[in-house]
């Protein structure tokens, strides 16, 4: 009999899982001690890996870090930012290339997080530089809804998710999360154009708020600022690119 969240443990089937059968299950972040305890019925740490209980397969499965270079600094920073940071596990839906978030966050539910994660990645995709998912934009946003957002913003951010779903249904006859990637991309691309062409609509207002926050979180992330130097050591106002690159590489004047 497989173990359940109410009866955490490790069985032989789990070891089989560990051999790689669920390699497309990923773990977004954030690691907050408080939430680990809240969520411990669903997530556990074993043999140096995080495990999540998969209801679909009714078994524990290993989850992998999306970002392999989460440093102690990021860890400390993000836990400072969101003390009860959420653990988001995702499962890739290979049919429509959608990372499905498996559990509710602190503010958004799993379906909302799935949509938001996808929208953020469409806005700022991974290229040769990290994308929104790499920069943990939506987990941070989920935390900010509790620590930063006022009543109006909370309403707006939840409402925009519903509005995007409504848009998906009216355009493609299906909720957003079930659309093919190309349709999702076209939908958000068109929404972006419309939102800035006509700023007076409620949809535009809500969408632009979401976009602004997604971009703010991304561009204040460590992933988006690889050249940031906390302590420059001095100021130089007239450098060649080569001189600048040399100092940047050194990390100090």
């Amino acid at each position, binding site marked *: 009999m497989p173990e359940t969240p109410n009866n955490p443990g490790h069985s032989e089937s789990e070891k089989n899982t560990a051999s790689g059968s669920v390699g497309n299950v990923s773990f977004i972040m954030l690691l907050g001690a408080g939430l680990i305890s809240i969520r411990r019925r669903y997530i556990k740490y074993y043999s140096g890996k995080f495990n999540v209980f998969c209801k679909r397969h009714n078994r524990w499965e290993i989850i992998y870090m999306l970002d392999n270079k989460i440093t102690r600094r990021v860890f400390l920073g993000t836990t400072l930012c969101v003390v009860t940071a959420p653990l988001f596990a995702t499962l890739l839906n290979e049919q429509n290339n959608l990372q499905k978030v498996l559990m509710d966050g602190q503010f958004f539910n799993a379906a909302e997080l799935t949509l938001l994660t996808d929208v953020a990645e469409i806005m700022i995709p991974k290229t040769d530089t990290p994308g929104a998912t790499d920069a943990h934009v939506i987990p941070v946003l989920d935390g900010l809804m509790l*620590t930063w957002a006022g009543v109006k913003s909370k309403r707006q951010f939840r409402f925009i998710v519903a509005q995007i779903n409504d848009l998906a249904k009216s355009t493609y006859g299906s909720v957003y999360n079930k659309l093919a990637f190309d349709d999702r991309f076209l939908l958000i691309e068109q929404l972006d154009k419309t939102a800035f062409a006509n700023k007076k609509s409620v949809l535009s207002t809500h969408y632009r708020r979401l976009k602004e926050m997604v971009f703010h979180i991304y561009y204040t992330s460590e992933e988006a600022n690889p050249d940031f130097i906390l302590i420059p050591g001095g100021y130089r106002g007239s450098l*060649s690119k080569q001189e600048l690159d040399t100092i940047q590489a050194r990390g100090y*004047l």
Partner: protein
Amino acid sequence: MNNKFDVIVVGSGITGGWAAKEFCEKGFKTLVVERGRNLEHPSSEYTDMQAPWNIENRNKVSEVYDEEGRYAAVSGYGYFKNATKQFFADDKEFPYSYPKERPFKWVRGYQLGGRSITWGRQSLRWGKKDFEANAKDGHGVPWPIGYDDLAPWYDYVESFVGVSANKDGLAVLPDGVFQKPWELSAAEQVISDNLKKVFTDRHLVVGRAANITEPTEEQQALGRGQCQARSYCKRGCTFGAYFSSLSATLPAAKRTGNLTIVTDSIVTRVDYDEATGKAKGVTIIDAKTKEKREYQARVVFLCASALGSVQILLNSKSKSFPNGIANSSGAVGHYIMDHFTGVLANAEVPGLDDKFAYGRRPIATYIPNYRHDKTDDADFVRGFGYQATAQHRTDTGTAAKREGIGAAVKDLSKQPGPWRFRTLMYGEMLPYFDNYASLHPTKKDKWGIPLLHIDAQIRDNERKMIKQASIDIQAILKAGGCTDIKLNETPENEHIKIGDRIHEMGGACMGEDPKVSVLNKWAQAHDVPNLFVTDGACMSSCATQNPSLTYMAITVRSVDYAAKLLRKNII
């Protein structure tokens, strides 16, 4: 606790710290009374060691504050972020009053060290003409001191503070005791060089920063280190690299063994002894318990900020001074001033695509006032200068607030853009008697202290300056070699909030004549010989330079004088 001291200093900000240091080092038992909470240095409230991704809420101030109507005076301003909000007073908790049609902005910092934690650090001497202006054009009360009176005290203060600056040789901006200056950027240097070819009176110089670049032994002994060019000063500086009461003067005072500090103690009044005709001390209300206490001293220095000191003076009523202590002239609360702006301009500096900057210089550049003397094209008196910067080249920004998503848009974001030079006019507001602060007749704060009501506005002279500054900056930018000039001038019918530059001054001006001024040339009350006011309240005019350095010089000069009187038992 002993409640008798030689000296009471009210306020621990930039002037209170200096008064405490000087009196303590001269051997006087000194009490500093601070209305805000205690802070240590370095403080756990400093956030200067946090990278952008480490700052709580990604540096966004909680929206709940807006919903609750808190921090309204500072909400939305660039300096009020999550990383700095702890150093600003919440005007909902500490209310003040103004006419509905003329909002006044009173930015305060209620903690040990006051606003010295968040000040702009631009440390500029005033020139001779600045002290002569009132007498020359007849506005306000003539200054009882001139530049030469303050010059040695500027030297003294700069040596201790640590001012990194260039010796520019300009009469309008006298040189002082400086440490190694910050360098101009490539773009700023081009403009500075070009201006010299066209003008003899308009100069672009690097700012003069209270950020140390060559720590002296004295500074190092206080635990202060060299500025690391982070430009996170408003978050507090763990290195003590910029001057504040917390990093410099209060530690210097503490090591004498003569300093006592009480925090969370709101001075409600200066107590006046009718028999001796002197101040006998102060009454405070404990901010937490609302318990009243009295402290006594031979001398009281008010260093509670310009408007803070005015509020205390007006609230210190007695038989001899029914309208507030030291107010026989009726001038207490009058001549409220601030610098004002009304012109923002920015322009491209072409031809520098191969140049880049590194680090975050903690100071801007400066175009000093060149219009002290009325010229043919001016229909106003006094003048203006510009705070300016092009310390880094611009970048292409992001699509956060414009159309565009996806990989192509992302790849074009945050790419190096052209150098652009941004300028902000800083005008001298005339000292108008009708710009005044008074005690609200009915409204009180939660400690029962009448609210300060501030009614101040710019008038015709300032509006004319804005028009001229708009014309001038275009000429300056063109002469500097700039292109694509963009100008933003405040419309004539738009109220410009006084206090917006956070350089509020006046309210207890200095002057020779006791009938029209509150303080004499020593910033000593004409009416009460052992009462001194050495913060921004004492200013008789406001010039165009950032005023803190002048407050500091006035303070140490006054302390020196008061100490002599104390030793001679005159006060």
